[in-house]
Structures are given as structure tokens and as C-alpha cells.
């Protein structure tokens, strides 16, 4: 038991180091990386409506330009409209051969860490979707697409979403700080997983809706609270969080699920793809989360074999997490109350 506790403390130090680097050096990166979205709807044999939605990053537009092939002609030139947190661009094009085989480029995407979700809807009911990554910033429209391909794309989106969702990772790290043994760790992570899956599903299907900015502020406050509880635990005090961490993990997991849902609901995906997309997105989130936990524990277990970590170090780790969370909380509350972030 004592060995596991020391291992977890080492895990925290590592997690704090990882997240502090990401979170404090690039505060904007504390929010989820929201993908851009390209939707192409066929309206008749040769015409297509194009919807191109790009997220704002710290108030700045994403530096990515949509480049269509030369064989495409514009019937309606691009028209931009600002939305809360994003910019929407619409145009109408005329294109040959159902677009099949045409290459669409996203100029500048390679310099970002943002994905682009592409959906194509043809009049005959065929659909195609894909996630375009910065490493290959183009999309070749297929004639047909398998459902496994769609599922795999969403799986990868889920993994990326959690690995760049630093506040969620820090919450998991802060939970590990108050967990004393393997059994409680498994219970706590399972409770968190079940809870965020529930709200992710409800929010994605549109059954429950919460505005993003307050959810993000509450997520930051949840990390701060768990970090404060960790300090209390080191002082020998008792509380609900310390005694039953899985209860708190479940409660806050419901909140974090709304955060995960943000990336999916923002896209306004067609309903027929939602169950498959949701399932594999969630599996991807779990894979990412478990990878993070496994990596941190592996290093922590190794470090505790070599170095000695005492109580002052545990308290420092909790204060480190709390400081980062407090910074995010103030930043997000400021955005809500003084910058109109709720709109």
C-alpha cells in the first residue's frame, strides 16, 4: 500500500510537470482542441453547398484556407459570418463527377494542431466523412466509404481530444493524488468514465445542453477543489472526497462529459452518424485517458524504485495542480463575466 501511495505521488509530480508545461506556457491550449468543419451537400447534379466552419483560437481566426480544385467553379462566392467561438463561411460551387476523386486542400493546416472534420452528403443518400490531420492537410473525396473507416476516424479524434484536453488530464492526475491503492484507483477512474460517458451521450444527442464557457470554468474549479482536498488529506483531515473519491469522480465526471461533448455538438453532425461516431469517439477518449494513466504510473513506479519522495513533495504536487487550476478558473470566469463569453 505504502509503495503504491509513493508511486502515485511520483505520478503526480510527473503529471504536474507535463500539464504545467502545456498549460502555463500555452494557456490557450488548456481548452479542448476543437476541429474545423467542412460540410459539402449536393443540391443537384452539378451543384454543391459548401459550409466551412473554423474555430477561433484565443479570439483569433484559425490560419487555414480552404482550397478547392481548379475544376470547381463558384456559383456563389464565399460569404463569411462570425459566430460565437467560430467563423462560418458559405459558398455554392459547380463541380464535375459528383466530386469523386477531387482533392480539397487546407492550406496552413500543417502549421496547426487542429483537425478538420469533413462530411460529404450526396443527393442519392451516399455519405462520406473523414478527419483530416495537419500531417496530411488534404482530402480526396471518395466514391464510397465504409462504416469502419468512419468509426476509426472518430476513434482517433477521441484519442487526440483527450490528449490535448489538458484540463481533463489534470483532473485525472488530481484524482490520482487522493487515491491510496489500486482498487480505489480502478473504482475512481471507472466512475469518472461512466459519468462523462453519460453526459457526453446526452449532450451529443441534444437531450441536455449547457453553454460551454460555464462548463469550462466549472471544470477548472473541479480540479482546484480536488487539489485542495489532496492538501487536506496530507494534513490528516477527512472529507467525502478523501473517503470516497469515486463519488466525487462520478459527480465531476458528469461535468467533464459536457466538456468532451463540446467538440462534437459544435459540429452539428447529422443524426444518422451520431451513434457510431459517439461510441468510437468515447472509446478513443478512454484509450487516451488510460494511456495517460498507464504512462504516468509506469514512470512513477520506476522513479519510486530509485528516488525517495516525502510528504513535502506530495503537498507541493497538490499546490502545483491547484495553482494551474486556479489560473484557468480565473481566466475562464473573467471570459464569462467581463468578456461576454456566455454569449
Amino acid at each position, binding site marked *: 500500500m505504502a509503495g503504491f501511495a509513493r508511486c502515485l505521488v511520483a505520478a503526480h509530480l*510527473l503529471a504536474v*510537470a*507535463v500539464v504545467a*508545461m*502545456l498549460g502555463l*506556457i*500555452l494557456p490557450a*491550449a488548456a481548452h479542448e482542441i476543437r476541429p474545423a468543419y467542412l460540410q459539402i451537400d449536393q443540391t443537384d447534379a452539378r451543384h454543391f453547398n459548401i459550409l466551412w466552419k473554423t474555430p477561433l483560437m484565443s479570439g483569433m481566426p484559425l490560419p487555414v484556407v480552404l482550397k478547392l480544385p481548379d475544376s470547381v467553379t463558384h456559383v456563389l462566392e464565399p460569404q463569411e459570418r462570425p459566430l460565437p467561438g467560430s467563423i462560418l463561411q458559405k459558398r455554392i460551387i459547380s463541380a464535375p463527377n459528383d466530386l469523386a476523386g477531387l482533392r480539397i486542400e487546407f492550406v496552413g493546416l*500543417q502549421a496547426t*494542431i487542429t483537425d478538420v472534420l469533413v462530411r460529404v452528403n450526396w443527393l442519392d443518400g451516399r455519405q462520406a466523412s473523414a478527419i483530416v*490531420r*495537419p*500531417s*496530411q492537410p488534404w482530402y480526396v473525396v471518395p466514391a464510397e466509404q465504409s462504416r469502419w473507416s468512419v468509426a476509426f476516424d472518430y476513434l482517433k479524434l477521441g484519442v487526440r481530444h483527450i*490528449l*490535448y484536453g489538458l484540463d481533463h488530464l489534470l483532473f485525472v492526475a488530481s484524482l490520482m493524488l487522493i487515491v491510496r491503492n489500486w482498487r480505489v484507483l480502478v473504482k475512481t477512474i471507472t466512475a469518472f468514465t461512466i459519468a462523462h460517458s453519460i453526459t457526453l451521450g446526452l449532450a451529443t444527442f441534444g437531450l441536455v445542453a449547457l453553454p460551454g464557457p460555464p462548463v469550462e470554468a466549472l471544470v477548472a474549479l473541479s480540479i482546484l477543489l480536488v487539489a485542495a482536498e489532496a492538501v487536506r488529506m496530507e494534513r490528516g483531515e477527512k472529507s467525502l472526497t478523501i473517503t470516497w473519491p469515486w463519488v466525487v469522480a462520478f459527480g465531476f465526471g458528469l461535468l467533464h462529459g459536457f466538456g468532451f461533448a463540446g467538440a462534437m455538438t459544435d459540429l452539428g453532425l447529422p443524426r444518422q452518424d451520431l451513434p457510431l461516431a459517439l461510441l468510437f469517439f468515447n472509446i478513443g477518449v478512454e484509450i487516451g485517458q488510460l494511456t495517460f494513466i498507464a*504512462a504516468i504510473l*509506469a*514512470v512513477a*513506479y*520506476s*522513479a519510486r*524504485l*530509485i*528516488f525517495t519522495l516525502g510528504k513535502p513533495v506530495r503537498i507541493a504536487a497538490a499546490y502545483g495542480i491547484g495553482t494551474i487550476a486556479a489560473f484557468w478558473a480565473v481566466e475562464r470566469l473573467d471570459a464569462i463575466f467581463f468578456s461576454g463569453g456566455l454569449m
Partner: protein
Amino acid sequence: MWLAPQGAHAHGAIEGVGDFYAGLLHPFVVPAELLALLAIGLLIGRSGLAACRLGIPILAGAMAAALASAPAITEAPDMTIALAAAALVSAAIVTTGLRAPRWITACLAMVAGLAVGIDAAPEANSRFAALLNGAATLLGGVALVTIIAALGLRAEKHWQRIGTQVAASWIVASAVLYLALQLVSSTR
């Protein structure tokens, strides 16, 4: 086959994963760095707890110093031979089962740390991005060595010791191959 094509783009940035993950993964995807860190980890792990407690901070310090001095280096030297040599010597000590004095393991850790740090010098667009990239490389490299050293420390049973020696012999073979490839390519 694994070594030859990778050597040509050993310094290529990992695109599309961001500066942090590109830095974190750098020691894992550049074969010469990976070989050197695996070999040093095995060596200090097999040399005992005191060697680990000395070797890991020295490696971390050397890596940090090299990464921090990267902006001052206008033309970074090719560290492939230094990395392969550090890997070769470290892994050969483990393979032969010799007990290296602590100062030797410390020196090898310092050489490997400096070589990895120079080899992985961040090629980022801004100072912040370079800082993030370099810090992540340091974290990834030290984490890898810590895990391998712990595995070496825990290898107490006979078959485990044989296993570490077999792993080290593979590193020796890979490092020799790497050095041979470097020699051939430099004489052409």
C-alpha cells in the same frame, strides 16, 4: 532496414502533433537517440541504486544544458556517431556483465545526455514553442531512462539478468551497424 532510412531524416520534426508531443516523442522516434538512452538506462540500472541516483540527474542535467544552449549553436554538429558510440560502450559493458565504476557510468550518462540534447535541439518557430519542445524532449528522455534503469535494477533473477544481457547485445549489434552505415556513407 530500420536504421538506414531513418538516419536520413533523423531530425525531421513530427508534424501535426504540436510542439509538446513532437518534443516528447523525439527520443523515441530517432533511432540513434533511442539506442543511446536504452543502453544508458540498462547500464545504470545494472550498476545499482547508487549509480541510478547519480546517473539519472547527470543525464537530465546534461540534456537540459545541451537543449538550453541550442539557440546559441549556429550549426549543430551531427551527433549520430557520438550517440551510437555511447550506446555501444554502455551496452557492451552490460553484455559482458562487467561492473563499471560509478564515475564511468556517470561519464557515459553525461555524454549521452549532451549528445541527445544537441541532436534533439528544437527547431520551433518561436521561443515559447522551442522551450516547450525542449522541455518535453527532456521529460521524454529522462522518463525513458528511468523506466529502463528501474527494469535493470529489478532484474535480480538469473533469467532476468540474461534477458538484460541479450537486450544489451542487440543494442551493441544495432550500434555497430549504425556506425558501419555512417562510415560507409561518409566515405562515399
